[in-house]
């Protein structure tokens, strides 16, 4: 009982110190788990169907792909290229058995070996690993919360530090969230103390009782002028998705369409 009382006094002391420094008292930080769960579940649903465009600008080329994607449960995901015609039918499949790429001309699925996970996906600034990674941040990272001031706004900052031995290439990932509904606005990916790429979220749409950003822009820090912009044209949650879609036969059926 006495101990508990001591805690109250201590908390009051430190809390009081903060009050003195800040002009406006910052609200209490929310629960870490609650915030990270929201990040985990951002685009997740029992099933989904989406159409999107991906615009890649690099020093050497500029390309625009039209993509169609399905997800089911936590593991299964399929992305099929619809346009341009030259690449239509190429697909990437994520299943319990790993990440696969579909070679339309050869009509065969090829597993992407773990040594190639850090390679770029479809010539974009996203990597295979971005597609493959478990959407459970708390498995590989330790999360901590803080307040962050930017442009006169108070944002919630989530710092994800990789757990020891976690198979993660980043030394740190820092998300900035809207403190209201925890919708992400930006993520900075660190290598050492340096930001190597930044993912920005924009254009929120209300869907399934939450706000979902329909635009994502990945900008590599070391390549000025380059970027990859993904825009959802259409995103539906809870649609009926045939489980056989995430097999070679099912994939071939939709890829060839």
């Amino acid at each position, binding site marked *: 009982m006495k101990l508990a009382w001591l805690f109250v006094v201590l908390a009051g002391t430190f809390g009081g110190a903060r009050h003195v420094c800040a002009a406006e008292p910052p609200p209490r930080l929310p629960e870490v788990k609650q915030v990270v769960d929201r990040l985990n579940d951002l685009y997740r649903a029992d099933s989904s169907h989406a159409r999107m465009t991906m615009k*890649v600008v*690099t020093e*050497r*080329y500029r*390309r625009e792909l039209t993509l169609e994607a399905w997800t089911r449960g936590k593991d299964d995901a399929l992305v099929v290229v619809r346009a341009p015609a*030259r*690449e239509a039918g*190429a697909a990437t499949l994520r299943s319990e058995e790993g990440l696969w*790429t579909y*070679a*339309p*001309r*050869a009509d*065969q*699925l*090829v*597993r*992407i*070996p773990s*040594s*190639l996970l850090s*390679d*770029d996906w*479809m*010539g974009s600034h996203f990597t295979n690993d971005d597609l493959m990674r478990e959407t459970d941040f708390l498995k590989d990272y330790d999360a901590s919360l803080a307040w962050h001031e930017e442009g006169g706004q108070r944002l919630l900052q989530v710092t994800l530090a990789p757990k020891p031995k976690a198979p993660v290439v980043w030394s740190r990932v820092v998300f900035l969230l809207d403190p209201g509904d925890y919708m992400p606005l930006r993520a900075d990916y660190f290598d050492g103390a340096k930001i190597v790429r930044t993912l920005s979220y924009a254009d929120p749409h209300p869907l399934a009782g939450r706000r979902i950003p329909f635009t994502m822009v990945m900008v590599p820090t070391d390549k000025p002028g380059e970027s990859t912009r993904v825009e959802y044209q259409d995103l539906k949650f809870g649609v009926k998705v045939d489980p056989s879609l995430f097999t070679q036969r099912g994939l071939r059926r939709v890829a060839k369409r």
Partner: protein
Amino acid sequence: MIRLALRNLARNRWRSGLTLGGVAVAVAMLIWSDGLMEAFLVTMTESATAMQLGDLRIESEAHAHDSSVYNAFTASPALLESVRRVPGVRTVAPRLLTFGLLGHKTRSQGALVLGVDPAIEAQASDVAKSVVAGTWLSPRVTAGERERQVVLGQDLASLLAVKVGDDLVVMLQAADGTMGDDRLRLVGIARTGTSDLDRQAAWMRLGDVAYLAALEGQAHELVVRSERGVALDHVATGIRAVIAAGAGPKLVARTWKQLVPDLHQMIELSRNSMIVLYAIVYFIAALGILNAQRMSALERKREFAVMMSVGVTPARLGTLVIVESVLLASMGAVLGALLGWGLSAYHAHAGLDLAALGSQGFTFAGISFHSRIYFVLRPGMVVLPAVAVLGVGALCGLWPALASSRIKLASTISGRL
């Protein structure tokens, strides 16, 4: 004088014989170990250059820093022809290099896809010769050929669990950002002895890779093989003049010594370490001759004193002792040269199986050596140790000769030392 010297040497056959034998063995050993060393170094150089590097490589300056698929250059027939015309150039082989994904059934592996001209590559490197199963890529698309041909490094083939005749899928990122994919037919498996190639390489026709990677008419490197016996730096200078005149991105030409300086330095170091070995062997041979001559001069002190008292000048006496040791050394040198040359010639012809020495082939700097190596034998390698031993013999005669010419007549003859 020579007859006298010979007679003197013959007086103690055992001693002369042993000294002579010692000199002969030393010379033979030098010749043989020099042959072995050269064999090592030549094998090493050839392994490094024959499979992949070539003697000289031309690439864009950007590719020399960053071997990305984008840093290709236009390899026009005119450029190839002008490089080929540089004196000393034997072959110029264009290559495309790109990383791709190879798949067979449920297995897949990342691979270094090399686009080569099958006929030129067969002259420019030993890859075609190193095919251990199936065949090398056919220069022309054969009638009825539906799939593009591929030859895999042996370890890559076993990782993918494919055998000759199997189908594979290749996927690679093209220079325009798109993904190229196609079905391939495995026509051959190569064992190059270079571990990187055996584990990673997939050879395809230049045109096929150019199509998949959207690099028509381009190359990432031109591999140049020079004529044997031509100074490579000379050829390099000629080539640099030619490529500097061309339009397009800046090209650089680097010799294998510049491409793998480590290997080059190691070879130079090995050559220099041979000099230390030479010094030791000469020193030991010198000690043997010196010992023998000194002993024989001491024993014949009285005889020398008598010779001098009947009118032989000290200079003549000294010369006699030197001639004796030179004769001894030269006989040893000739015998040793014959022995060493014979042994080396045998190993140059039949090779030396290092497996007998307990080595099952070995790998150095990513290049694996076969356990049987073939000696290198040049006239200089035989003549040089023999001549050097002659000089050593003459030097070793000096001290006993000087000592002999300075003996005191009266006390030596009377035996009162």
